[in-house]
């Protein structure tokens, strides 16, 4: 499973995958998590932060999008400062250069737990490789409070920007963390993902060539084994999902 980096430069070759991503987001956020204000009759979840500045990390396996993450360059758009400033009232957000925001975290559906585990690990490692390639210094996010101890467990030392507060479907909190050089190697060890995970297809504009990015990825990395757990045995994370405790 590789994580494709999709930007305004190369999105022209990802039409099919972007559609799959928006459908998966609708399935997870509206149907599974019950965030009904994101509902749409067409079954795709899109908001006005899905603009030309957004960068998508799409975990692709078996030719399909299994999970995704949207990163926003906060010097252009920032959900926390634009939509949720009251949740970040204890520490300055400091949006700007070098600061990106994790949004629409969607590692997959609990109906396919093995894919969920793989996509979750791939997206985390992919986001750290992306951070290395773009010089990301800080990640921000506004997330469900239950993720906060996991960010501590990953070793990222998240700083809360406000107290956790309840909304209709649960509790959420705004946090930020500094991306450090050792985070990527630590995540590779934890998730046993020693190989490069992020793949960024070349830019493709109207006048240029076009190609199938998944075929391109496979030509570079070769065919990955289909599905299944890692050969050395399940990682703790995999064991967890297989037991049904997503």
């Amino acid at each position, binding site marked *: 499973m590789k994580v494709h980096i999709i930007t305004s430069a190369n999105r022209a070759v990802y039409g099919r995958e972007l559609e799959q991503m928006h459908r998966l987001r609708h399935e997870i956020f509206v149907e599974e998590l019950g965030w009904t204000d994101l509902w749409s009759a067409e079954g795709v979840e899109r908001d006005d932060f899905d603009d030309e500045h957004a960068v998508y990390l799409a975990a692709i396996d078996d030719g399909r999008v299994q999970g995704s993450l949207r990163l926003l360059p906060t010097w252009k758009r920032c959900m926390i400062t634009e939509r949720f*400033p009251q949740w970040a009232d204890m520490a300055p957000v400091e949006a700007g250069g070098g600061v990106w925001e994790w949004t629409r975290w969607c590692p997959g559906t609990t109906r396919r737990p093995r894919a969920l585990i793989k996509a979750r690990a791939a997206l985390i490692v992919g986001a750290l490789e992306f951070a290395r390639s773009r010089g990301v210094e800080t990640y921000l996010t506004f997330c469900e409070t239950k993720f906060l*101890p996991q960010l501590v*467990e990953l070793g990222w030392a998240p700083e809360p920007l406000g*107290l956790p507060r309840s909304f209709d479907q*649960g509790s959420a909190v705004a946090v930020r963390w500094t991306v450090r050089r050792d985070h990527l190697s630590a995540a590779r060890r934890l998730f046993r993902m020693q190989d490069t995970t992020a793949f960024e297809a070349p830019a493709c504009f109207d006048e240029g060539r076009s190609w199938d990015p998944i075929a391109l990825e496979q030509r570079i990395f070769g065919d990955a084994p289909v599905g299944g757990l890692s050969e050395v045995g399940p990682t*703790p994370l995999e064991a*967890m*999902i297989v037991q049904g*405790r997503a």
Partner: protein
Amino acid sequence: MTHPLTNSDVARRAFDAIAQAQRVDSFVELNHVLGKRISELGFDTYVGVNVLDPGGRANHQVIFGATHDAWEAHYAANNYSAHDAVLREIISGLDPLFWSDVTSKRPLDIDELRIYNEAAEHGLHEGFMTPIHGLDGSLSAVLLIGEHADSHDPDIRAAAHLMSLYYGSIGTRLRRRDELRTLTPVKLTPRQLECLKWVRHGKSSTDIGDLMGLSSRTVEHYLADACNRLGVRTRAQAVVEASLRGIITL
């Protein structure tokens, strides 16, 4: 565009404590920095407990923290985890809960009620339990207990929630590190060891180079390697880590 900062005292103190807690290296420090703030909210007992292992099996035990010895012993001796109403709610949900939240939510059966009454007899009238879901699927929790605490102030609830999450997750990291320390022996080469001993005696890289007949750059290289093997970033941490592992003596 700046946003005005809230100056709620409780929230501010919680945030400062959390910032300090992220830098602690021991349980002594963690309890001093974060435990103290928690007790200011009215909870003299604050413990990290295991609830379910990654397979979903019950694994209830106190792992770290400032416990209430008598209550912990009484609870364990009577196997109260099998009838604990608060524990049941925590296992089935995501939200933290005051003991009084549970009693106002639903009626308790006779076994559940007994636990509440006996806690009260021990002088423990209010508790706050926060679930923590680990990356491996395990469920642990942080339990705060006191004589009385204000469960109606939303800022106190939120501060207790936030501090519990950090107390639990940082405590777990410290424990894992301690366990790893005992499980994975670290071996330094004789040169690395010698360099480290000189660092412990306050020598600079240049001094060490002179003493060992090496360039200071070579000394830096040996020390960097030693830091890597010990899993630390600075040579000062390397000295501490090596001594905790019995590789050098302080």
